[in-house]
């Protein structure tokens, strides 16, 4: 970098110039580094999709689109179809989120707004620890503790109150969509609570105080001011939770019943994509079988794209509506 005027070494001017040069380079460096990291993420995912794609060549060639609509999964006959698994993944994830988001956000509100700081910190600490419990242990607790309780208390109660809905009809063996949904709720709630609480606490105090000064009740200030302020963060936590629910393997396979079928009843046993891959991958013999499982992984990827797009559109429209009202 040539200087237009000669600068002597060691003078304050030269030090200032090299400092400025360092800062400027630092700015570019930071930009390049962070851009590289963001691009690396895209590259990794692209590589992942590519790897899944080339490993799925066989079933793509053999089944093509009918893989997505096929209802049979017969390793012996070499006939594979993804629909029952797609159905199970959607049902269990939807059930998990429908319950986990209200409960999680509710608990986050309590911890962020109402609980004394020390208790709030301690409890959140422990709740985050829940995320570290291996899913195997969730599965074990699920099958030995949760499923019998659901069979004894929750299922009959649901049947009594909502039994007119086809959702809650039919025989109940314990392992079912319902049980898988409940286990998933417990597994994803820590994410929602942790992240939502942090964003709620990050909303400036002034906002709350302004609302209260205008005569709002505590709840109104939370619901009408703080939450909309933190909404992107809360939604983000919802996406985190959704992602975990979609991809959860071990715990789900232990309580879902592992029966590929499409049915309206939550009491029935079912199957999910992640569960079937976990169950059959290590033992799969034969190239078509193995690559069909990989193809299922690709299908899950596509499903995640669709669900994410759907959720984002939903959010955009409700936000727009909210802005208009």
């Amino acid at each position, binding site marked *: 970098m040539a200087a237009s005027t000669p600068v002597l070494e060691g003078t304050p001017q030269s030090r200032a110039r090299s400092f400025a040069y360092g*800062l400027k380079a*630092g*700015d570019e*460096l*930071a*930009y390049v580094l*962070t*851009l590289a*990291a*963001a691009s*690396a*993420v895209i590259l990794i995912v692209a*590589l*992942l999709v590519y790897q*899944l794609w080339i490993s799925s060549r066989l079933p793509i060639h053999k089944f093509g689109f009918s893989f997505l609509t096929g209802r049979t999964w017969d390793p012996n006959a070499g006939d594979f179809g993804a629909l029952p698994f797609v159905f199970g993944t959607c049902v269990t994830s939807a059930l998990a989120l429908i319950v986990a988001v209200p*409960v*999680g956000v509710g*608990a986050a*509100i*309590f911890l962020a707004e*109402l609980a004394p*700081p020390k208790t709030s910190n301690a*409890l959140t600490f422990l*709740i985050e*620890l*829940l*995320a*570290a*419990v*291996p899913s*195997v*242990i969730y599965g074990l*607790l699920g099958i030995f503790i949760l499923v019998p309780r659901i069979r004894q208390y929750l299922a009959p109660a649901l049947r009594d109150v909502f039994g007119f809905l086809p959702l809650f009809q039919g025989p109940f063996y314990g392992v079912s969509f319902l049980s898988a949904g409940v286990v998933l709720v417990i597994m994803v*709630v820590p994410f929602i*609570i942790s*992240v939502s609480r*942090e*964003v709620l606490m*990050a909303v*400036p*105090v002034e906002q709350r105080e302004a609302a209260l000064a205008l005569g709002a*009740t505590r*709840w109104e200030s939370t619901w009408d001011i703080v939450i909309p302020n933190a909404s*992107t963060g809360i939604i*983000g936590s919802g*996406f*985190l939770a959704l*992602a975990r629910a*979609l*991809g*959860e*393997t*071990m715990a789900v396979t232990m309580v879902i019943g592992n029966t590929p079928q499409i049915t309206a009843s939550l009491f029935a046993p079912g199957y999910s994509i*992640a569960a079937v891959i*976990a169950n059959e991958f*290590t033992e799969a013999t034969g190239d078509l079988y193995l690559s069909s499982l990989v193809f299922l*992984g690709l299908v*899950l*990827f596509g499903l995640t794209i669709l669900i*994410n797009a759907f959720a984002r559109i939903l959010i955009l429209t409700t936000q727009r509506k909210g802005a208009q009202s």
Partner: protein
Amino acid sequence: MTRQVTFRRRFINAFMLSLTGVATLLVVSVLFFILGYLLWHGIGSLSWNFFTKLPKPTGETGGGLANAIVGSAKILALATLIGVPVGFLAGIYLAEYSGRTFAFVVRYITDLLNGVPSIVIGIFAYAIVVKPMKHFSTFAGGCALGIMMIPIAVRTTEQFLRSVPTALREGSMALGANKATAIFTVVIPAAKQGLTSGMMLNLARVAGETAPLLFTALGNMYWSAGWSQPSASLPVMIYQYAISPYEDYHQQAWAAGLVLLALVLSINVTARLIMSRGSSLARR
């Protein structure tokens, strides 16, 4: 009429706030139940042997899971080194530098990566690390878990950086800092609490993952030297012990679950101690 409106609003206030209390109670009771169950079943098998000895076949006493504890620590350290910087820097990019479309694309893709089942990540890591290396290794396990750490790191970094008020950024720039300096010396420290808790959540989540390790680090009954040997890890040992028919293995599985939680807890506490210089913003 004013009094009625006030009463209705006060009722809703009390009702909704107590609902949030109920939600918290639900979560906390499940939490304490799980922790209590683990403690109850696991604490009996914790012993000096557990932390220092190698696994023994069923029926023989004196075995432990020392190699699994060390293995998990190594794999998690490597995963953090791989996943956190990439995710952290990418999150900074999304929050501070990028335009709307590119940010949208990266965010979307990150969410996709987050939704990939851990077993598929394991299969991926197997294809790109284990197969070329021709053997299972700690390194492959670290890669798999590192990839899993990226999405949450990106998401939480971006989130908590965004939640720092613009006033802070502008203030520091008004004092003469350029963008990079503003970010690294003002914005990031302001979001410290959130960033740390996000990273802890991330670490906690991958610490318990079994499926990716099955195809990468495999497992080892002995000490694993260096980084290119198969390695034992706590989640895999828990899985293998839990599904066996032997009661002594079951006890060890619960104890291992407890140790895993304790490992994550200690990392959590250490990180918070390191990061807790000063307080974050917007605290009441």
